[in-house]
């Protein structure tokens, strides 16, 4: 009998009722993250059926998706800064949390922020937990060795009522990353390259476990960037085994275990890494030492190239042609040097201190090009405060960028922050789908470094060139 993988260890430990041919497994959920956009219909179901929330204590609530990134000092301001439906949705979240006894990290909370940023920040995200949220980027939390995946609103209702989900066991894909990253190449470039390699359909039906030496050189924020975008490769979850860096990150956080509980937890977490003889359904490897900064050229994250390379040649495929037409790029031609309108640094992919510090360091002493609007949106109010304590906000503002309150912001164009029709944005977010950032918006996904270099030059730029000046 072979050993167990990280995934299998977490899965097995949460089985309430095993799966059979006739019925899926009943899987216990340790942490349910909720936000304002995907829960109203779930709460409505509970109200209709007069049901209660089984474990409000395992439910973590915040507001991020439709919440504006301009200051809301009192709730009376809400209708001034948010469109009526968004304001109503935010008020529904506040009312629902109060009605069902769930603590909400809302306006006025120093912990409010993007749900996938604050879970780890609070120490609620921990190795070995099962974590779900009505949001596909729940895969982020897998960086801690949790099994974390996105669910729909009906499933959110299931978790609210029973703290469980009906699940079939997925397959497991091992992705081994080898080789050291070159200067100017970041975790974002690694995950973009992987999605380019396996395709946006490559991980369907699988959970990915990341293995390989370069992971040890990445901090938790960089690991989260990789797990975050794992869903863009079709896999619902990405997982990384906890190590000393994980423990160092978690120690002392508000919801992390403390004292004897911490020691017991660490003892348990040390057993989580996959056994040497663990079996995987599929194995993929990625040579990180050859990677360059990556940019997308099309309308899904798998349509990605090294920044110095031309757009691939036209295969005649209608989906490919539609994407190039939409993006107004030409097959066989580089997009390096193409004029841009917007730069967005933020989202659950790249809005943490590592990203902001790097961006600030690069932009210091430079100016955002006159033709470019640049938005920097911290992932949480805690990050905002920390960045401001370090003076990063002043660096961004004096360079000509906007500095905002936390939230999903321009990642998905539903909170007032949008890319205009036809405008081209270099964005550190996770999706370059048609219209994702606004109706008719065109999106190039890139690392914070590439985004900053592009903001300064006013064109899509190679961050390694900026470093040379």
């Amino acid at each position: 009998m072979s050993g167990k993988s990280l995934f299998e260890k977490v899965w097995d430990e949460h089985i309430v009722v095993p799966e059979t041919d006739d019925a899926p497994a009943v899987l216990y959920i340790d942490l349910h993250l909720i936000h304002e956009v995907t829960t109203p219909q779930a709460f409505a179901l509970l109200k209709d059926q007069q049901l209660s929330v089984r474990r409000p204590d395992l439910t973590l609530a915040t507001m991020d998706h439709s919440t504006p990134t301009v200051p809301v000092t009192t709730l009376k301001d809400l209708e001034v800064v948010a469109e009526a439906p968004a304001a109503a949705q935010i008020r529904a979240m506040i009312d629902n949390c109060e009605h069902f006894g769930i603590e909400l990290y809302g306006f006025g909370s120093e912990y409010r922020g993007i749900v996938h940023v604050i879970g780890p920040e609070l120490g609620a995200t921990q190795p070995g937990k099962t974590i779900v949220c009505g949001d596909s980027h729940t895969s982020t939390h897998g960086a801690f060795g949790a099994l974390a995946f996105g669910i729909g609103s009906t499933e959110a209702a299931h978790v609210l009522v029973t703290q469980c989900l009906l699940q079939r066991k997925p397959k497991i894909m091992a992705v081994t990353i080898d080789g050291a990253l070159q200067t100017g190449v970041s975790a974002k470039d690694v995950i973009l390259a992987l999605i380019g390699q396996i395709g946006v359909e490559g991980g369907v039906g699988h959970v990915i476990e990341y293995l390989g030496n370069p992971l040890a050189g990445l901090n938790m924020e960089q690991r989260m960037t990789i797990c975050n975008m794992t869903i863009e490769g079709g896999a619902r979850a990405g997982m990384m085994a906890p190590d000393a860096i994980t423990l160092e990150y978690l120690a002392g956080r508000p919801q992390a275990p403390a004292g004897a509980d911490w020691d017991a937890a660490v003892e348990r977490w040390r057993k989580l890494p996959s056994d040497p003889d663990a079996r995987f359904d599929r194995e993929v490897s990625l040579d990180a030492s050859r990677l360059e900064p990556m940019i997308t050229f099309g309308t899904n994250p798998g349509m990605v190239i090294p920044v110095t390379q031309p757009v691939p040649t036209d295969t005649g495929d209608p989906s490919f042609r539609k994407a190039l037409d939409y993006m107004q790029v030409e097959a066989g031609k580089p997009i390096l040097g193409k004029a841009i309108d917007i730069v967005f640094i933020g989202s659950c992919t790249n809005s943490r201190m590592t990203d902001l510090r790097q961006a600030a360091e690069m932009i210091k002493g430079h100016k955002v090009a006159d033709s470019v609007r640049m938005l920097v949106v911290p992932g949480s109010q805690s990050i905002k405060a920390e960045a401001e304590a370090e003076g990063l906000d002043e660096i961004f503002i004096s360079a000509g960028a906007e500095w905002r309150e936390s939230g999903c912001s321009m990642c998905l164009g539903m909170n007032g922050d949008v890319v205009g029709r036809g405008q081209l944005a270099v964005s550190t977010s996770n999706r370059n789908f048609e219209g994702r950032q606004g109706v008719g918006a065109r999106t190039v996904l890139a690392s914070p470094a590439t985004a900053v270099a592009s903001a300064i030059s006013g064109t899509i730029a190679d961050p390694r060139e900026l470093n040379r000046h």
Partner: protein
Amino acid sequence: MEKIIRIESKTLVLPLDDVDTDQIIPARFLTTTTRDGIGNALFADWRYDANGEPNADFVLNGPDVAGCEVLVAGRNFGCGSSREHAPWALVDFGIRAVVSTAIADIFRNNSLKNGLVPVIVDADTHQYLLDNPGITVIVDVKQRTLSLPDGRTATFPIDGFSRHCIMNGIDQLGFLRQQEAAIADFETNRPWTP
């Protein structure tokens, strides 16, 4: 939820790969707190031009759309976000089955809870459906088959539990709630608490 045992319908064909949920329903329509009228937003940015007028060449604006319940799409339909608004919008519009060679995991899960049958077929059947829009097909949930007009039949995977729920219009929450004793037992006896 409506019971679905057998669907006989002409097909609508959207011959694009990787159709993401931001296309099925753009994020700006997600500020709703209900499901009412959500079908109006289905494929909004492909269905309507900048002035809000219907795009004549988009499949949902064709003359034979009324009554079509089967949507055939390219590979990896429903990729992207977990928004259940995507299947809600399709169902509200009148679609009851989506056919492809691959359907994204979260979208597939959400579909099965909303009376939208995800039909994953082999590449040959799929290509035939893409090449022959508007043909009448039969999706038989009980038999797990999709039948073409010439009598050819393809099978599609759907686990027994989901099939039972779709065929009887059952909300899975009822089944989960019946597991209460096991859940309480798990919470009491697990070796550590979150």
